[in-house]
């Protein structure tokens, strides 16, 4: 099973309570000092961008009413972005469990954007000095004992903050209390090893990832075998090549000794 940060910060979003007022979006932009944004050529239709770290997406319920679902970084227990960053610019804070980004280390390869199964990290495509931008769970504020701006701002408690254990318990309590009102699933409890941002809803939220339903296996595990094979492959290849070279050389030498009248064309020095 995956390893979660004990008492790590977590957010539970109950989409049945969200009325789509976008106070969280505004609060996030204010606290993180994000500039205004307009849809650009490179924007996706989910509202997230380098300047919008959280957004509300609408989905139609079977009865025609809209469901409002808040998108943000999921702060995975075993984040793919952290695992793939070649310079460690993406890090999971060992205290809070927030996935944070250090622009000073970043080389701009955008592998994190490719690897994230939720497609969360966004890029400053219009900047000469571009950085990866995404929700950092207001990590600096968490460390001061404060709470994230988005959960503070929510007027209907549709998105609430606490430790992951508390939030999971609360999610299951709500699912049990009103079983008819929810789909009996906590998104983020097990998918890809679990995330710190959890959702309960009356509609299927699998669409928050790239289309297909996510499995429980954490993504860094998919590269583990291949990465673990690196030292043995290197040593094995070097060993095999040395061995082959030595055997063939020896065989040629034996042949030369037995047939000393012919010269070996391989021993000339043209190169």
């Amino acid at each position, binding site marked *: 099973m995956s390893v979660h940060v004990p008492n790590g910060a977590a957010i539970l979003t109950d989409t049945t309570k969200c009325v789509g007022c976008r106070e969280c979006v505004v609060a996030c932009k204010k606290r993180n000092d994000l500039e205004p944004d307009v849809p650009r050529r490179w924007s996706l239709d989910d509202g997230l*961008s380098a300047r919008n770290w959280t957004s509300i997406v609408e989905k139609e319920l079977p009865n025609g009413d809209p469901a409002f679902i808040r998108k943000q970084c999921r702060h995975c227990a075993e984040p793919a972005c952290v695992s793939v960053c*070649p310079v460690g610019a993406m890090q999971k804070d060992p205290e809070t469990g927030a996935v944070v980004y250090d622009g000073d280390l970043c080389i701009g390869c955008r592998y994190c954007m490719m690897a994230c199964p939720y497609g969360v990290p966004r890029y400053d*495509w219009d900047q000469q000095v571009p950085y990866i931008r995404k929700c950092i769970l207001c990590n600096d504020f968490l460390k001061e004992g404060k709470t994230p701006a988005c959960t503070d701002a929510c007027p209907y408690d549709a998105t609430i903050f606490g430790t992951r254990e508390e939030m999971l318990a609360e999610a299951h309590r709500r699912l049990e209390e009103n079983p008819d009102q929810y789909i009996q699933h906590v998104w983020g409890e097990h998918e890809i090893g679990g995330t710190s941002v959890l959702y309960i809803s009356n509609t299927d939220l699998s669409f928050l990832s790239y*289309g297909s339903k996510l499995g429980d296996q954490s993504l860094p595990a998919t590269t583990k075998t291949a990465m673990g094979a690196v030292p043995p492959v290197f040593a094995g290849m*070097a060993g095999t090549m040395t061995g082959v070279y030595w055997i*063939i050389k020896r065989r040629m030498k034996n042949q030369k000794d037995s047939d000393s009248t012919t010269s070996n064309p391989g021993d000339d020095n043209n190169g």
Partner: protein
Amino acid sequence: MDKTRMDRARVLKNILWGITGLAFAVAITRFTFGLGATTNLTDGVPWGFWIGFDVMSGVALAAGGFVLTAVVYIFQIKEFYPIVRPAVLTAFLGYVAVVLGLLFDLGLPWNIWHMIIYWNPHSPLFEVGWCVMLYLSVLTLEFLPVPLEDQPRWSKIHDTLTKFRIPLVIAGISLSTLHQSSLGTLFTIMPYRIHPLWYSPILPILFFLSAIALGLFMITFEGHTTTWIYRRHSHRDMLAKLNRATPWVVLTYIVVRIGDLTIRGQIHHAFTTDWHAIAFWIEIGFLLIPAVLTMVKRVRRSDGLLWLVSFLGLMGVVVNRINTGGVMHTGRGIGAYLPSWTEFAISFGVVAVAGLIFLWLVEHFNILESKPIDEENYPEVKPKFDNLSRTWLGLPSFANRARFSLSFVIMAGVGFLLLSGESVRSSGVEPEIALPARGGDTLWVDGNRDRFGVSFHHAAHVVRADSLYNGCATCHHLNLPGDKNTECSSCHRDMYSATDAFGHDWHANSNGAKLSCSECHPQGEVRQAETAAECVTCHKDLIPAAVGERTLLFDYPVKGYLAPSYADAMHGVCLECHYLVAEEKQDVRFQQCSFCHSEHPSFVNVGPEEYPTSGKVIVPLDLGETGQ
């Protein structure tokens, strides 16, 4: 050299310099305006052609180096020795191209050295980065003896490097194995992103196998190309023999790939009609055709056919890398991606630079068995005038430089010309024509959201607002600071308050009713409201006859000059009859609020046919004009 025939090398170099010039213009733009202005990448497709072509394919094209050094130095099949130097040089330049391409693709290329000191050994890209650095160093050391060999000053270094050749070759092969395969590892973390026909947990193995195949194709392609450019003696026999291995390597790759798809139960994706399946078969076809053709001895021994076949094979693997690297990524929100011309320009520019370095090195060092052009012994030729300008450009070597500079400058100019304008400056803001809003002609205005409201005839208001007031801005403030909704009462000022409905001045004005004072104010009386004539004296039908002398709701007198408020007036108009009918029929329902304001959220929906009485009842809102 035969001077009367076309100088193929010169024409090729001219083209390459031109491409470099175009890429130069794009490069400047890329670093001035950022990635957004010069690529078609999006937040959904963050890796595109530069990664797929320059990096992934560049590395794969370099596979010829490690394949041939293994054949010649480890397996000691010395007959291939004449083609090992160009192969090592190609590998070296392939890696130079990778690094050059990366410098454009990385957002912060000046931080590329961070990989040396900030480590994240879990990252496949970290491994790729280190392999590039190490293998580039190994290739440099492998290649360095060539330019040093005829220089007595450097003979010591040359001899030392030659002594360490076998360890270097072994290090190179091992690094290449890791590197080719770790490019596949890069993508194993994206099982939900890459189309199932391209995703596989054994991508590293597939990439390694296809890299070996590509190595053979590349050696063949490059061998026959240089032969053709410099009109040299062909290594036909050697390349034909080398290509006896090609079909088996390629077929192994195809079998492993399709076998892997079959075992994991994903092969059914290949038998659909969507374009992913078609692209898959095109890719396989690009490899299968060369594999089958190289089995034929006649093809192997024909320079032209083998060149074509190896080119097809190259395309097969390159397309595979580009597909895996960004094109065959599926999923919600990722969107379509087609590289922009600027991306092609940079990619081909990088290849052109590598090609120019290749040609320069081939002409100045013993890469091939002998130098193709002997510059010191240029044949004595008469001054030859340039065809276009009718000027003498100088000695052949100098004249060529002039021509190449011209190509470069012209193409750079073309590049800047194409890049000027809105496409770059607007930096991705999509221009969109603003259209007037098209709401319904009648809107249901429910200000306090209690499901009771009024139907607002927007179309009629638009006509009035346009002719009388400030158009849309009368009500819509177009998002000025401090904006708020315009209430109905800001125009209909009598909606909620009792109002003096009597316009005294209008009645007295000669442009109005043109009445003399005495027509309302009796002679001799003090002229005040209390003593004036009542409105009904003149306006005989001001008040419905049925109302009579009754006092209306809320004790507003019908007599007098104070008009009831809008809401009360509406109630007054309707309720009078409702009360009468309720009395008459002895049915209290007719005077209950819910009779009109039903739970159904619309007062409007009370249609005339639902009214119990005849023509006395006034339909509260006219639905006839709304087109319903």
